[in-house]
């Protein structure tokens, strides 16, 4: 494990065209610092593999960093039931999208993590998720694109039974996850829900963890039941206080409704989105500088109450 800045991690560990798993879920624990830094460094042709995403997906797709996406859900909850930039890029054919379900994507990360050749489920039988493919036929088998989206298999244990859906495993080049705590040696602790972050990290070739706090390793080892990833799976750690802002980080801060509503106002329009990048992404070469732009007042507003893990009474309209 190596302690790095976001800039160093993006420069040394992420290449154009890489297949990247984004951790978090819609408005929660998105690796926002890493997303902004990838945009600042002009990463191109990224191949995102996600379940339900999310604000980081919106920024990366909107900034033109992404070529293809395997996804179950592209939205930011009530702030954008369908992600504005995701929708626009899809409709304008700037990205290729392959649709799966949340269970299918989770199983694919698990299969990758466990070295399984494929994984099966009944979810999706008879639907267009099984029948149709969004990736172009020419892309199939090229680079990291699986030869088939999925396939139907006879159930080997019940030859008279119905078919099952077989899915290819995922072993992304990089997993980007945001944890609450990382020990000095690299042990990771996620608080609240883990989504599929652990599976994504275990499936990936390179794991970059941003975190709210770097703490003494002994502090995490006092309660190992609460830890999720051992140090030797983690390639790089980036200190990132409020690193998921404007999405939430349980026990540390809520989602930022003011920022999410601001994003909602500008996200439909290309010029206004570009202006957003100029205002909120490109100028900041450090997390501290970004947080200064957000401002103390708004950060205090969303600070989590330890009794709740979020900001009770926060005006979320």
């Amino acid at each position, binding site marked *: 494990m190596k302690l790095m800045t976001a800039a160093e991690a993006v420069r040394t560990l992420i290449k154009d065209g890489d297949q990247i798993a984004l951790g978090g879920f819609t408005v929660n624990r998105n690796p926002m610092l890493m997303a902004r830094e990838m945009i600042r460094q002009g990463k191109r042709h990224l191949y995102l593999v996600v379940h339900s995403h999310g604000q980081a997906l919106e920024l990366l797709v909107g900034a033109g960093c992404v070529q293809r996406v395997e996804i179950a859900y592209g939205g930011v909850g009530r702030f954008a*039931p369908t992600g504005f930039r995701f929708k626009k890029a899809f409709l304008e054919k700037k990205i290729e999208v392959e649709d799966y379900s949340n269970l299918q994507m989770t199983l694919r990360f698990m299969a990758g993590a466990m070295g399984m050749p494929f994984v099966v489920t009944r979810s999706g039988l008879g639907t267009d998720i099984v029948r149709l493919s969004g990736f172009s036929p020419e892309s199939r088998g090229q680079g990291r694109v699986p030869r088939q989206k999925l396939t139907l298999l006879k159930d080997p244990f019940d030859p008279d039974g119905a078919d099952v859906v077989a899915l290819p495993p995922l072993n992304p080049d990089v997993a980007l996850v945001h944890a609450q705590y990382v020990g000095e040696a690299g042990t990771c602790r996620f608080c609240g829900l883990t989504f599929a972050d652990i599976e994504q990290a275990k499936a990936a070739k390179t794991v970059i963890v941003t975190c709210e706090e770097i703490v003494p390793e002994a502090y995490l080892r006092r309660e190992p039941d609460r830890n999720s990833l051992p140090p030797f799976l983690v390639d790089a750690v980036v200190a990132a206080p409020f690193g998921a802002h404007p999405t939430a980080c349980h026990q540390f801060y809520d989602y930022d409704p003011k920022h999410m509503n601001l994003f909602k106002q500008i996200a439909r329009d290309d010029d206004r989105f570009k202006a957003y990048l100029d205002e909120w992404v490109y100028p900041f070469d450090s997390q501290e500088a970004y947080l200064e732009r957000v401002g103390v007042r708004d950060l205090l507003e969303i600070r989590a109450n330890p009794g*709740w893990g979020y900001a009770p009474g926060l005006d979320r309209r």
Partner: protein
Amino acid sequence: MGIYTATEIMALSAGRLVHNGDILFAGTGLSMLAATVAKRIHAPESVVFFETGGIDPRLEELPLTVADPRVMVGSAVNSGLADALSLLGHPKLKTIAFLGAAQIDCYGNLNSTLLGTYEHPEQRFPGSGGACDAASMAYGVIIFMQHQRRRFVEKLDYFTSPGWLEGGDARRRAGFLRGGPIAVVTNLGVMKFHEQTKRMYLETYYPFTDPEKIVAETGFPLDVSFATVAIPPSDEELAVLRQTVDPQRLILGPPAVDPA
């Protein structure tokens, strides 16, 4: 009985379909209202869980999405997608999933992915999320829809989540072990599905509308021969919904305006 909005009667109609002790798979929006209102009124032992991994959280404040930190507090278990989704199809659990969609057909099959085609897309929606999984594996599904002709269609543009497929026993033949839609709750009424054919029919319509209007807003033939008028929301139901469940009206939206 006071005045109420379509959103309020939708949440309460869906809530009334919940049995005490049901294991509820809640999504965003209306389903959170329905689940929490049922839990507070008549189904206190029902349990809400979220695909993100929050199992039976306290829900002191209304979550805005399934990944809201408000689904992580006071839970029986905080886990992740794999754990939560494994509960959906568990044979000993009567899991009831609430789902919404952009389009529905007469067998309760759902589209939440796109309009047009991949080659010539006209509109994009978020995609399945966990909807296809819930529709595939849950014990039953309750669907929320805005009742409009362009949403109640003869043929889905994209078939995301399985209902009764082509009707009859098609669902079993396709390989699903159980499940299927129980009801469709719209801003005009509640639809159910015929026992044998699995085609949608109108069960109840809200006091402010009538079966003719509902037929006109439905893009496929709808049997209204069993339809009766719905019982309006009680003062108690409305009070719980407005004062306890969603006091900021985050999902309820603007309150009803008294025409008087």
